[in-house]
């Protein structure tokens, strides 16, 4: 057992630093020695990776459904690969989430209740239904592999085609509920722009889903399909750009922007995510489209950049949100207007300089 006196001096020394006010927020917001007024989410790479995986898998199933609806024979591979990507995402998603729990053996307690105010609960059941329906959609492909001479595949195929629609609905949820998960917290950066974050995650997810599918089509020498998916990725990336700009404006307005630049890692990740996930694909796909000729190299670059950028964006948003919670200047400034405070009692009002040089409390 360690007693206080047994603690090595250097370890005690580390605690011997006064918390200091960090940059950000409004200058006239006092803080309590700069000590965090909120607690940051205790999540790591497992969660931001999951957000990316869930979004990509969900979007792949949505796009696959669009391919199925078109009834085009040449788009059948897109439908089938959408199903596979969806399944891979579902298979990876659950372990990522369970591994992130701090008492993983009790993961099943998530299924005890459903709570509509909790995106974590909404997400549990979204993932569950997405996995179930996606499982049905991949049955024909799995059976074809496992039992080549088995007849009665027709019935299974009908089941898969029907299950495709609920899988797509759950897939839509997978692209977006994670934005609600972050927004419905008190971490200022996440709470500052819920709508913009929703649009951003959804658009980025569809771009990633289209990019993943385009990658597969390109590698299987179906350039026409890859080109079609590239167009979809372009539209989705443009939407992502719009929502990113809008959220940036919101962050500035709500004075939480400093959380992005709070540490070099986050600042770099945030910028890199925009350059790689938005800039590079827009350039590659744009050039390819305008030139009228399909370039395999540009298509592959765009797909890989979209995927990498999507992953990086989730990481950057996650870190920036945690920074904003740890910075009391930002969080206390944010919470000053957040609740629509109305009239503050005199004691709670800021001090203002009086003519005689002293500072007095504003009376109204």
């Amino acid at each position, binding site marked *: *057992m*360690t*007693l*206080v006196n047994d603690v090595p001096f250097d370890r005690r020394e580390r605690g011997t630093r006064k918390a200091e006010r960090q940059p950000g927020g409004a200058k006239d917001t006092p803080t309590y020695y700069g000590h965090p007024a909120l607690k940051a989410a205790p999540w790591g790479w497992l969660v931001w990776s999951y957000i990316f995986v869930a979004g990509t898998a969900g979007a792949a199933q949505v796009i696959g459904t669009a391919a199925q609806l078109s009834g085009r024979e040449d788009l059948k591979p897109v439908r089938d690969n959408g199903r596979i990507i969806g399944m891979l995402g579902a298979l990876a998603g659950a372990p990522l989430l369970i591994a992130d729990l*701090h*008492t*993983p*053996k009790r993961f099943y307690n998530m299924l005890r209740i459903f709570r509509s105010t909790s995106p974590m609960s909404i997400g549990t059941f979204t993932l569950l239904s997405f996995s179930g329906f996606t499982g049905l959609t991949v049955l024909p492909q799995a059976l074809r592999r496992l039992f080549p001479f088995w007849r009665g595949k027709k019935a299974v195929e009908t089941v898969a085609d029907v299950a495709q629609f609920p899988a797509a609905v759950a897939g839509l949820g997978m692209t977006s509920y994670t934005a609600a998960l972050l927004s419905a917290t008190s971490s200022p950066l996440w709470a500052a722009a819920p709508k913009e974050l929703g649009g951003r995650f959804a658009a980025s997810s569809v771009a990633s889903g289209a990019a993943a599918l385009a990658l597969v089509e390109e590698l299987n020498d179906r350039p026409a399909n890859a080109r079609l998916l590239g167009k979809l990725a372009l539209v989705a990336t443009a939407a992502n750009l719009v929502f990113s700009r809008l959220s940036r404006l919101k962050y500035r307005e709500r004075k939480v922007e400093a959380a992005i630049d709070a540490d070099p890692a986050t600042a770099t990740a945030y910028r890199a995510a925009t350059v790689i996930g938005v800039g590079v694909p827009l350039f590659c796909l744009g050039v390819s489209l305008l030139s009228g000729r399909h370039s395999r190299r540009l298509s592959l670059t765009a797909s890989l950049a979209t995927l990498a950028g999507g992953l990086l964006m989730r990481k950057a948003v996650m870190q920036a949100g945690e920074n904003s919670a740890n910075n009391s200047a930002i969080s206390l400034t944010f919470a000053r207007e957040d609740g629509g405070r109305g009239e503050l009692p005199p004691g709670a009002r800021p001090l203002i300089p009086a003519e005689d040089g002293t500072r007095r409390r504003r009376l109204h």
Partner: protein
Amino acid sequence: MREMTGIITVVQEGRFRLVADDGRSTLFVLSPSARLEPQDLTGLQQAERRVTVRYRDDRGRIAGLAHDIVPPRSGPTRSQAAA
């Protein structure tokens, strides 16, 4: 992993106090990997039976992190048996 043998005297949620055979009392926190659950601790406390706690130091806090609670590894000392 270290061991301490004694009687569990107080239980709160997943935390418990163990009075060791030498009379010193130590606070433990139940690790999530332990086979026991917080709700099992009350039973042990009420039974007042000697147990051995296998633990590590809980970093940054003055408590042990209990990984397992097992039947006592050693008998009571002679003076205790006499008492």
